[in-house]
């Protein structure tokens, strides 16, 4: 299973990447694999506030709908509209397919997230 070390992870199988271009959030390789073929994504509006642990998006595979939780909270600056037209790229490139970019309201929230190693271990145990 692919788990890049340049970001942090939640137990709900989302990733958070902090970079020069902002704080982006997406779902992991493990998550896309568990969901199967993704055929639909519902994204929030830019400008909305989302709290850590809150649902901010929905992904639907052929089989079922699943909520996507925000690992950290803040104001949504950008949403990736490319996912609306081509949701299948979440399956093929889960770590490139960011859902939203946010302005974090509390940097401290990053501390409670898992490192790549910890997340890998968590997936094995689950």
């Amino acid at each position, binding site marked *: 299973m692919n788990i890049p070390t340049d970001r942090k992870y939640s137990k709900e199988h989302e990733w958070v990447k902090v970079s020069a271009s902002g704080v982006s959030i997406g779902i992991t390789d493990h998550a896309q694999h568990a969901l199967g*073929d993704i055929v*639909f994504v*519902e994204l929030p509006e830019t400008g909305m506030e989302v709290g850590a642990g809150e649902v901010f998006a929905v992904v639907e*595979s*052929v*089989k079922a709908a699943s909520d996507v939780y925000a690992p950290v909270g803040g104001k949504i600056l950008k949403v990736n509209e490319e996912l*609306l037209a081509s949701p299948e790229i979440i399956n093929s490139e889960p770590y490139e397919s960011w859902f939203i970019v946010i302005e974090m309201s509390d940097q401290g929230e990053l501390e409670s997230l898992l490192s790549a190693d910890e997340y890998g271990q968590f997936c094995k145990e689950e």
Partner: protein
Amino acid sequence: MDNLLKTPLYDLHHKYGGKMVEFAGWALPVYYSGILDEHEAVRSRAGLFDVSHMGRIEVKGKGALRFLQMLITGDAGIMVDGKAMYSLMCYPHGGVVDDILIYRFGPEHFLVVVNASNTDKDHNWMVQNKTDDVEIINLSRDTAQLALQGPQAEKILQGLTTVNLSELRFFRMLCDIKIAGFNCLVSRTGYTGEDGFEVYTSTCHAQALWEAILQAGSSDGVVPAGLGARDTLRMEACLPLYGHELSPDITPLEAGLAKFVNFYKLSFIGREALTDLFEKGTARKLVGFEMEDRGIPRAHYAVESGGREIGSVTSGGYSPTLKKNIGLALIDAAYSKQGEKIDVIIRNKRQRALIVPTPFFKKQYRNK
């Protein structure tokens, strides 16, 4: 998964990378490579399904035909030896016990194939309603059932038998024929809207037969296919699924299956209630719809018209063939006309949909 029932092909599902899920108490693969891949393979080439979880119940004896005539809404009297027939069993109030496939071996010998989730219920129902001159035997655990479906199905299966399959007509069967050297019952039937076959054999031959079919079909692109594709394929073809389009609370007339109810038969369980309903007209009707707004309709979502609830979605999802979001809904008959707009409530939002003709997908395969 340990407490679930396992089909004779359980080990092979692991070998082929099946993602196993619980279905009607059974451990079965929802997909191997992916639902979209498998769906596409069945529409364009062929897919092999393990449907051993379905119930297989033998009906034998002097009174077998008379018993079936009382039990089902269709007319078993018109069946000849070697014929398969789709039918329904109803309760006295007209609700559905199950939808079934019946095979006739002879006037005193039939096989009834039922939904996995209903096997025990159906068996009990049959035993309860049988006469002394009828024997009901549950063969479900002694037999395996495979479905090979898709345009290449005949070519693939033909490679494994000397019997001329091109002469096997739709809804006919051949019993005691050899497929890959194993004794099988083969019928030209399925649940995908494609040409194809269902193959029944003893549990002990199931794995070898599965492997032989996959090997014989490898150059024609056959793939193992799971429950996920089975569901999307049957939904596009508008084939009902018990627990969704049919239930004890839904009559065949509401589900659009009136042609499977033979009112000229003087007596069968449910006849009075269904006759009454037929004469009065049903208050609810099953319709097919396509989403116009974004969103995927799913079973149990509410359906509204002008802000008033008029029914609910029975099955819904993404159609891989049409690349649209589609569904079936049981709604107030007053709103059931083609071209009518309805709202499907998806995560508390009204999303517009259009009632369209069904089936969503129909293939002109050789239906001789």
